[in-house]
């Protein structure tokens, strides 16, 4: 499974790590739903650190699609909401 951390690059993460990552993912979702910036920052920091630790970096010259995309560690609630709400133009150049 390939995971991208926005502005950092991609990592290949073993499927075995999924349950652990999903748990943190739930915490993130709750944090965003509750508008809790501190909880989002904490959960995001934990999640990114786990991905960097257990993952293998994807070589720069490899073109691969990600299965999962994580925001940057210092992302704000507004930024995360904007990313998820953004369904038209912006993320990918047309």
């Amino acid at each position, binding site marked *: 499974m390939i995971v991208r951390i926005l502005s950092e690059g991609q990592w290949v993460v073993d499927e075995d790590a999924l349950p652990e990552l999903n748990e943190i993912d739930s915490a*993130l*979702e709750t944090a*965003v739903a509750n508008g809790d910036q501190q909880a989002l920052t904490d959960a995001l920091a934990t999640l990114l650190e786990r991905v960097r630790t257990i993952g293998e970096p994807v070589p720069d*010259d490899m*073109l691969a*699609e990600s*299965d999962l995309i994580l925001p940057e560690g210092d992302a704000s609630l507004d930024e995360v909401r904007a990313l*998820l709400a953004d369904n038209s133009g912006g*993320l990918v*150049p047309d």
Partner: protein
Amino acid sequence: MAGFFSRLALIFRSKADKALDRVEDPRQTLDYSYQRQLELLQKVRRGVADVATSRKRVELQAQQMQSEMQKLTLSAQRALEAGREDLAREALTRKSGLQAQLGDLQTQHATLQGEEEKLVRASTRLQAKVDAFRTRKETIKATYSAAEAQTRINEAFTGISEEMGDVGLAIQRAEDKTLQMQARASAVDELLASGALEDATGTYKDDITRELDSLASDAAVENELAAMKSQLAVGSGPAPTPALSSSSSTEASPQPGVAEASQESAQPQAAPQSPEDQ
């Protein structure tokens, strides 16, 4: 992971799919995409230069603040030497105010440096992917014949699209942050230029310096006065000498009036006696 952020991946994918659907000949998609990649690379490099410019400006401002703080330390030392603890305290208080501003600038500097490093890294990564895409594009175009090629085009396109989307976001973030920093840096520059910050530092420092200077000039005046007085005291030896010599000269060669007076006084004294004697 079917969770929260898998939605982000889906957004990237659906955008790439939409872009592909719009083009009739997939080979054109490859060429068009490659052009966009080169443009994006240029944009990333400009972004790196912009962030570097902002960072250098913050560095310059931090240097200015540091030299202001050094001046205030010197003022405090001068004040203490002059026995003015109140002035020394004032100078040090202003210095600690500047210290807080400097801390803020240093945080900004660290943020800009982080953005700069991220963009440099993004630029390297994008360059490598663009190169890989170009190689793959030429291969696909040369062997283009069947639906198999279409699949490979889709793979290459979606792979690079995601990277471009990410880099595009990174540039946007860096631009936003740089603009914020530039606005704050301009505010500090304006303050420095208008003298308002000089008021907060310089003028404060100036009145301390002015008071120290006036203390010093008071001392200089006192010193000069004392020097003049002591010169006068030494000179009070020779100064009476002319007066003495003039009085002795009066004795030696009596002025006519004085001589007349003495003659007159001698004559009346003699005159009464002489009639009695006669």
